[in-house]
């Protein structure tokens, strides 16, 4: 009886957005009298930080610092339609809608600035710090604060924009299944290293090295939190979780966190995250949706590592000590 070590690899891809498309999201953007910007949506922030990302996307597009953007969302009386936050679609779909709305607002903003500066709007650029400059003559400039005041009180203009993003729905061909499930895919490759106690069947995940390709890391810190969390969930799916431990038998389902097993802090592997960026053609600043796929590759990587360690295949999830011991016993009997 011994502790045996093994490692396994898995490589995957994952579609962004609702399967087959047809999932719209809209956004509205407008400026306050003093040049702050409101993004209005009905999308839901699930705790992954969607509001923050929408603020950064709006700020980038209009050309102001992120702290000048406020996001108002998840209210059906004020926010335009969003299909919902699921299917790795929030950043991609709502992000694109925000870009379109912000571009329209930016155009009005530049037109007002052009009137104030007596130049053509096409000759203007933003400095990202809250000012609008004449290209090639940056000493000629106006603050966005003053532009907004002018728009509201002098020029009677609404610095605002409407955005809409919809990928037309694809209908699968009945006989061949020809279809367009998605317009862009994120990718991952994970290597997991485990120790398996061949006496107790217990698995300890030592390290998980994840490489994710996600189009563009719009906010690297927030990407990291989502990818690390996903990686933990993958390990949890591989080794611990189910509401029906003896599926398809309906008995013995857990009803609280004492009975429903999940890894605790002490069970978490050393987790490494590496991110590659191949911008997607239709993503907001190239972003793809990594929200779901980041929890997938760990499951087969751990399963393959268990085989590498003790030479038995557990093809039924979760890979519990009981299943490993039964497989080892069957292996010894042969």
């Amino acid at each position: 009886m011994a502790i045996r070590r093994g490692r396994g690899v898995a490589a995957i891809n994952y579609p962004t957005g609702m399967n087959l498309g047809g999932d719209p999201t809209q956004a509205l953007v407008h400026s306050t009298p003093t040049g702050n910007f409101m993004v209005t949506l009905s999308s839901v922030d699930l705790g992954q930080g969607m509001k923050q990302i929408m603020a950064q996307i709006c700020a980038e597009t209009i050309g102001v610092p992120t702290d000048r953007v406020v996001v108002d969302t998840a209210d059906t009386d004020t926010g335009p339609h969003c299909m919902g936050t699921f299917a790795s679609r929030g950043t991609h779909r709502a992000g694109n809608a925000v870009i379109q709305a912000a571009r329209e607002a930016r155009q009005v903003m530049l037109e007002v600035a052009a009137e104030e500066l007596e130049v053509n709007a096409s000759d203007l650029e933003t400095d990202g710090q809250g000012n609008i400059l004449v290209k090639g003559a940056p000493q000629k400039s106006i603050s966005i604060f003053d532009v907004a005041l002018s728009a509201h009180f002098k020029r009677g203009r609404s610095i605002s924009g409407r955005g809409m993003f919809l990928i037309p729905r694809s209908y699968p061909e009945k006989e061949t299944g020809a279809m367009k499930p998605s317009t862009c895919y994120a990718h991952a490759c994970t290597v997991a290293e485990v120790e398996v106690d061949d006496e107790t069947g217990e698995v300890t995940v030592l390290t998980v090295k994840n490489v994710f390709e996600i189009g563009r890391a719009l906010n690297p810190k927030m990407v990291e939190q989502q990818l690390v969390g996903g990686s933990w969930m993958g390990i949890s799916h591989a080794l611990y979780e189910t509401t029906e431990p003896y599926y398809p038998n309906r008995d013995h389902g857990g009803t609280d966190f004492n009975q429903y097993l999940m890894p605790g802090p002490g069970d978490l592997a050393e987790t490494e995250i590496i991110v590659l960026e191949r911008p997607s053609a239709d993503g907001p600043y190239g972003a793809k949706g990594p929200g779901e796929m980041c929890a997938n590759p760990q499951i087969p990587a751990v399963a393959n590592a268990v085989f590498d360690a003790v030479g038995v295949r557990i093809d039924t999830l979760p890979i519990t000590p009981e299943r490993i011991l039964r497989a080892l016993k069957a292996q010894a009997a042969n």
Partner: protein
Amino acid sequence: MELRKNYFADVRKDDLHEIGQPRPRSDSPGHVTGKTAFFADRNFPGMLHLKMVRSPHHHARIRSIDASEAERHPGVVRVLTAKDVPHNVYTILILIQIGPEDETVLADGKVRWKGEAVVAVLAETERAAQEAVAKVKVDYEVLPAVFDMEEALKPGAPLVNEYHGQNYYLYDSGECRKVRFGDVEAGFAGADHVLEQSYQSSPIEHAPTETTGCLVVPEGNDRFTCYTNTQAMFFTLDNTSIILQMPGSKLHFVGGTVGGGFGGKVDVIVEPIAILGAKLTGRPVCFIYSREEEMQISSPRAAEKIVIKDGVMKDGRIVARKVTGYTDAGAYSRHSPYGAQKGAGHYPGPYTIPNVWIDTYCVYTNRTPSSAMRGFGVTIGDFALEVQMDKLARLIGMDPLEFRFINAYRDGDMKAHRQPTEGAALIECMQEASRAANWPVAEKFMAMTSYVKGA
């Protein structure tokens, strides 16, 4: 976390100001100091608590319901049954024309899974509601149930859901969603090895910190404000409008920060009945799942069975792949027909295989309906695919990582569902994993790219 900017540097401009910056989340100070408001942080005078009488049987006919004792229980204000729900038989994806309507808000004549909602009790306190639930007498005639997908698909199996008429979802393509590409049998015939393996998963709970729920306030203007942690505001509003036969203009949904979704808050379960309760009593109503309800009543990730048959050559090329996937929907559709169909679009995985045959089935059984969960339709499929890849590599004596390079999809490769590959990056992920994990592969694989550089 490390950003490896050396990959794809020639197809990316790093010229942005706000994007790519690790700005602190504006909501995190609220989260870590306990100041963030969640839907249930509200309290309204006179708010009623809704609790459900749930089926103790997996499959049963309801002979009669006697709620008279529950109605007399101190604190009970109203008891709701199926006849109180204007449009009791519904299905959520009807909004995107995926029917038929197959589920009841409150059971009508029959229950199809253990835990199904039968009677709703509204009371002044949670305790009174819970006590009254125990006093509702339901006379059941227990029926044979089926839990195993293979058993459910056999002729003569108990029929789970009459609205479907058979124990599988009927797609326009028939009993399953199909993908046909090349000639899979010819591929097997010409292969050096053929390997068929079966994979199985069990239902999984989302386990969010915050359980599913909502608070409803009847407003003075004849509208209803519903504070909810749904993941999809209008999807829930529009389905509620159908179920209650109430104009959408009467409904105002307010969300906010949600304490974890993972797909568990995409079903429309708590809102319609809570709004109905508020309408019929004129009082604010809250309906919040207990942890037990969250774990055994709310939809889990579907259990799946996946059979993969591959033909592989000694040089590492996969020449044929046949996948048969079964998704256990439980008693009702919810999002499972969508999930099973998503699987059909995902197989055979990120590999270029000339001959592919895919059938994905959505199967009904007498268990808690499954539905959306992070990656559903794909997550368990990837488990099966990638364990199968490991087995194939070992079968032909090849390094598992190198074996994947040989088959990895690249830009321009035709997928089984007849879309050319665009924006591939699997090869680069594997190259970086090879370095990071000190898992060396042959130089020719490290020199590969997913795309033509400079093109």
